[in-house]
């Protein structure tokens, strides 16, 4: 047995994973800085992380338009990966911005938060860029394990502990499904490289091969858990409610997008021949997810729980675009995930500000009177709620429009109708927040918090991101279409 090191060396192109390398090195550096530089305030770590995230973003966009694979085809840099990397970096950047104020208030301002956010981002980026089952799995595990820690980061809060524990147990369980599916697919094809599996799917019998079919569905189960699609959504409300609010914001946007990224790459590249099978399944799951999410959200008073169920519903909308499998639908997912990152993290940023220590005021009713006491903040929240509800002229509207028109294009008229009806039902609970802010008399003065500079920046960016793609969607949509074209 010989190992041709020179040949191996030629397959390695470090530029492809440069954003990941930057964030990993920065994460390790910050980890050490945190223990070697004793400082009460951890704000400087947030700014350093932000610089790294922006730097990684710049490095990532330079590859736009090219397709380069590296590490012997285990990872690729293409428009699709870059688009999703931007979503992850954005989610990480916004989460970093709103963390310091919250963590200081809750007395759990440990510097390890920022390196772990960076490592989560590395995991998500690897998931989007991976073209090898093993790399996908390690990316997913890196993301998941970091998220378990982030969910339980507030050690003194029982709810946060519960969130971390629940997420860990159920997440590990779902990872088992995923890994089993991968093992079956490897058993059928004898390779873990996505391109090779794709070329073998038809040869081994496609949907007629039971082992391959079961493998595909088991893998899907693992990803459906990560995107919080029904019936694998049970963990979402408890975890979202218990986790520190900035981390809830992060995990509602980033990992969901990462799950969609890998699912899209897998189903569209590896299993296009089995579209009849997965498309029907996603049709049913989309309806189930939207309905369960929206109709449970209607009954929630706790705003974090409400947004958790809303996040389930949004996964359902994206599954509508996915089930269609058309370019309009899939590019709609990319567009929607990016917009969702802005509007959802924006909404959580407002929750971060309103909350008192320990978040005793976490219900929608506690927002009564905010519109008069803090008009600008209420205006921002209104923008986010409008966008989440999918009202024009926000990004949420355009995103839903493309998702549903993808379904219509593919002939799934009923799916689109159910989606629109669901969307209409969801307006109730989003508008309820606005009604409380503006039209209900409030006793609170909303004077216990100041908006720190990073949170203000996050709010401005999120509000802009929720509005601008809604008014001029063409540019972003063009990018999204270019991104899915390469698949």
């Amino acid at each position, binding site marked *: 047995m010989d190992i041709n090191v020179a040949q191996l060396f030629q397959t390695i192109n470090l530029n492809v994973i440069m954003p990941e390398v930057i964030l990993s090195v920065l994460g390790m550096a910050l980890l050490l800085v945190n223990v070697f530089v004793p400082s009460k305030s951890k704000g400087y770590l947030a700014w350093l992380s932000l610089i790294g995230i922006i730097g990684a973003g710049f490095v990532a966009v330079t590859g736009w338009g090219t397709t380069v694979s*590296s590490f012997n085809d*285990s990872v690729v840099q293409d428009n699709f990966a870059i688009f999703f990397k931007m979503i992850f970096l954005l989610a990480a950047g916004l989460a970093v911005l709103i963390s310091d104020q919250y963590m200081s208030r809750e007395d759990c301002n440990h510097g*390890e938060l920022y390196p772990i956010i960076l490592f989560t981002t590395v995991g998500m980026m690897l998931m989007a860029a991976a073209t*090898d089952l093993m*790399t996908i799995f390690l990316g997913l595990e890196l993301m998941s394990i970091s998220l378990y*820690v982030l969910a339980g980061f507030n050690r003194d809060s029982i709810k946060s502990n519960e969130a971390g524990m629940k997420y860990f147990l159920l997440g590990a369980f779902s990872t088992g499904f995923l890994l089993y599916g991968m093992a079956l697919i490897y058993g059928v094809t004898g390779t873990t490289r996505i391109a090779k599996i794709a070329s073998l799917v038809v040869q081994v019998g496609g949907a007629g091969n039971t082992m391959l079919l079961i493998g595909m569905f088991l893998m899907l189960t693992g990803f459906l858990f990560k995107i919080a699609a029904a019936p694998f959504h049970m963990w979402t409300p408890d975890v979202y409610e218990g986790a520190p609010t900035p981390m809830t914001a992060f995990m509602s946007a980033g990992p969901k997008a990462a799950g969609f990224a890998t699912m899209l790459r897998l189903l569209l590249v590896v299993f296009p021949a089995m579209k009849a099978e997965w498309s029907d399944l996603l049709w049913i799951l989309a309806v189930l997810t939207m309905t369960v999410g929206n109709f449970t959200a209607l009954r929630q008073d706790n705003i974090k729980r409400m947004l958790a169920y809303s996040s389930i519903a949004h996964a359902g909308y994206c599954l509508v675009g996915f089930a269609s499998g058309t370019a309009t639908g899939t590019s709609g997912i990319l567009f929607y995930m990016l917009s969702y990152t802005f509007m959802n993290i924006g909404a959580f940023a407002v929750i971060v500000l309103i909350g008192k220590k320990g978040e005793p005021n976490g219900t929608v009713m506690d927002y009564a009177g905010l519109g008069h006491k803090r008009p600008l903040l209420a205006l921002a929240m209104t923008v986010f709620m409008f966008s989440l509800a999918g009202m024009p002229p926000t990004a949420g509207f355009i995103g839903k429009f493309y998702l549903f028109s993808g379904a219509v294009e593919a002939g799934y008229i009923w799916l689109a109708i159910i989606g629109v009806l669901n969307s209409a039902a969801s307006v109730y609970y989003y508008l309820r927040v606005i009604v409380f802010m503006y039209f209900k008399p409030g006793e609170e003065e909303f004077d216990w918090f100041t908006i720190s500079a990073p949170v203000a920046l996050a709010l401005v960016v999120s509000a802009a991101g929720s509005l601008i793609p809604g008014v001029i969607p063409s540019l972003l949509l063009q990018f999204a279409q270019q991104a899915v074209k390469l698949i």
Partner: protein
Amino acid sequence: MDISSVFFALVTVVAIVSALMVVTCKNPINSALSLVLTFFCLATYYAMLNAPFMAAVQIIVYAGAIMVLIVFTIMLLNIRVDANKKGSHQVALGSVMGIVTLLLTGLILTRGKVSQPVGGITSDMINKLGHTELIGKVMFTDFLLPFEVTSILLLVAIVGAVILAKRKLS
């Protein structure tokens, strides 16, 4: 019946008895120690299947490290021997599951099709080049990136363990 069949039968008897002891022992520490024996039997199976690396990992990681964690958990929770009463519904459910699993296994063994191994790695290759060498070769060439990511994964796990379990932070 050659010597390796006899050996296999012996190991299997030990594996089944020790596995039964895991679920029947009254004292959880005894269950844990029986589990160590089960792990050793599994390692022997791996060795008999020409997978010595898996055998070594089974002993180093499972029988070694994981068992330490399980024993610590038992001592941390301080499960009393008498608290270990089994409900009858648990026995019923377990029996049903056991019978179903047994039937499924029987079905697979009698009716199942055995597919041919696919991919580049064959038994001859493993015999000729060595199991550990082959694993090392793909790990350090084809799966170089996942291998390096593993170290970051372990790093996150280390940091997470310290953050979540250390008594005093900062």
